[in-house]
């Protein structure tokens, strides 16, 4: 049975890019542990020689011709941008 500690939750939150408060970390630890405990029942199912079911769709790649089509205009793409400048999305400096 998977035990979920506060430290585990902090790691998952970092991967998920969620800045949780301390009280949230504690609460989620308990809830995730309970849910994971429930899904642990899958361990008892035999899946020897079973192919994973990724999608109900045909299972073939669907291709289109490699020609430019109608695209989103730059202004449309930037329409909802929280911060923009010079036709770009603006974010805090990464370097």
């Amino acid at each position, binding site marked *: 049975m998977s035990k979920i500690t506060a430290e585990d939750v902090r790691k998952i939150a970092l991967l*998920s*890019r969620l800045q949780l408060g301390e009280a949230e970390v504690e609460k989620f630890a308990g809830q995730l542990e309970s849910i994971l405990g429930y899904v642990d029942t899958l361990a008892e199912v035999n899946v020897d020689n*079973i192919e994973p079911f990724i999608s*109900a*769709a045909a299972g073939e790649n669907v291709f289109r011709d490699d020609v430019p089509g109608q695209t989103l205009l730059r202004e449309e793409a930037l*329409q*909802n941008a*929280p911060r923009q400048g010079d036709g770009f999305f603006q974010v805090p400096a990464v370097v």
Partner: protein
Amino acid sequence: MTATDLAAAIRGRKLSAREAVTQALGRIEGQDGQIGAFLTVDREGALAAADALDRGGDFSGPLAGVPVAVKDNICVAGQTCTCASKMLQHYRPPYSAHVVDKLRSAGAVVIGKTNLDEFAMGSSTENSALKKTVNPRDTNRVPGGSSGGSAAAVAAGFVSLSLGSDTGGSIRQPASYCGVVGMKPTYGVVSRYGLVAFGSSLDQIGPFAATAADAALLLEAIAGPDKRDSTCLPQMLSGLTGLGQKLAAQTVPEAAKGLRIGLPKEYFATDGLDDSVRRAVMAAVETLCSAGAQIKEVSLPLSKYAVPVYYIIATAEASSNLARFDGAHYGHSAGEAKDIVALFSQSREQGFGEEVKRRIMLGTYVLSAGYYDAYYLKALKVRRRIADDFARAFEEVDVIASPVAPTAAFRFGEKSGDPLAMYLSDIYTISANLAGIPGISVPCGQDGAGMPVGLQLMGPRASDGQLLEVARAWELLNG
């Protein structure tokens, strides 16, 4: 008035499109204050569309002039698409969903966007960050979820047609709770382009209506291939063509004759299944038998693993799909973030509600290094076995009948304290999404408290037309 009758009245010039829309707006403006089905109503746009139709004089579209409500996780260009979340509260998509384009080519008027559980995550619409929607049949009870607003809008008579989305039961369960018809089509029948993605291998858009004929009319209008969704079936389902008109004209329950109905023994043996729900569902099945159907017990041995499989796969897919909400491109953005990771992490913490965060974290966990094989990959293989269970059952029966939910609509707050209890109520609907098969909920009676109960019918992939025919047969037998 049914959509079928409304469309005929408008086509026959007994009613103008403007009158139809004005009447719908009147009902919404008069009574939605008590129900809370709509997040936004596009009064101006709807009247303009109606006027254009009346001026142009071409009422050949099967839904010409008929007002339709759309769940607010389906994009309509220029209008907000909030997903009932603070993350997208002010977001206006620059494009419309394929189904919205299809509705408009059929002449329908999109009248407003309906409330849902945030990002379609929930079974009661209580997780909406923006509004509360009540069940029109009892305002102390939930309408179900996640498409609670769309179900309530039809149940309250505001519109005759609405669109929802169904990832684990989010159309069928609110249909059952509100006493209307709701259907999840075969995966791939309706394009997901413009549906804000939750679980991409599970999501389908589908119709709500008061009758099977109306549901067929709406499904035919929105179904069909779309190059912008590579998971769409390449051909329109021929069984849907003209089906709405055909069912509306039927007076005899033809589809019941010789129908082989499977009853999964595992579904009726579950502890939490309310007795009055069981009785209502069995009575409906027996009524179909009185018109020539036969019952056969079938077994779906992996049924008890459906909920855990779903909550691994759906959350894994959600964690990936919701990664795009980062405070940089659209949606809520945290001010004063000191670096880019802080921008992402604070924007998401502030923008997402609790259930959404819980599912993102669960999904991240089951996909993470060291856990991927034991959880996600394992779940995909069990999913294959669940789909195989259904395929085997459909060798012996034409449709499978079951309850939609273990109980009728519950009271507000009754399940919101325990996430797991809420998840377990999806037990009957989830498997259809896992297997990619169609499922419909039709009202079949009431529970002990007088609340609506739905009968679920499921069929093999591409049997959508047949399910609607059986639903119509049931309606005719039910008076």
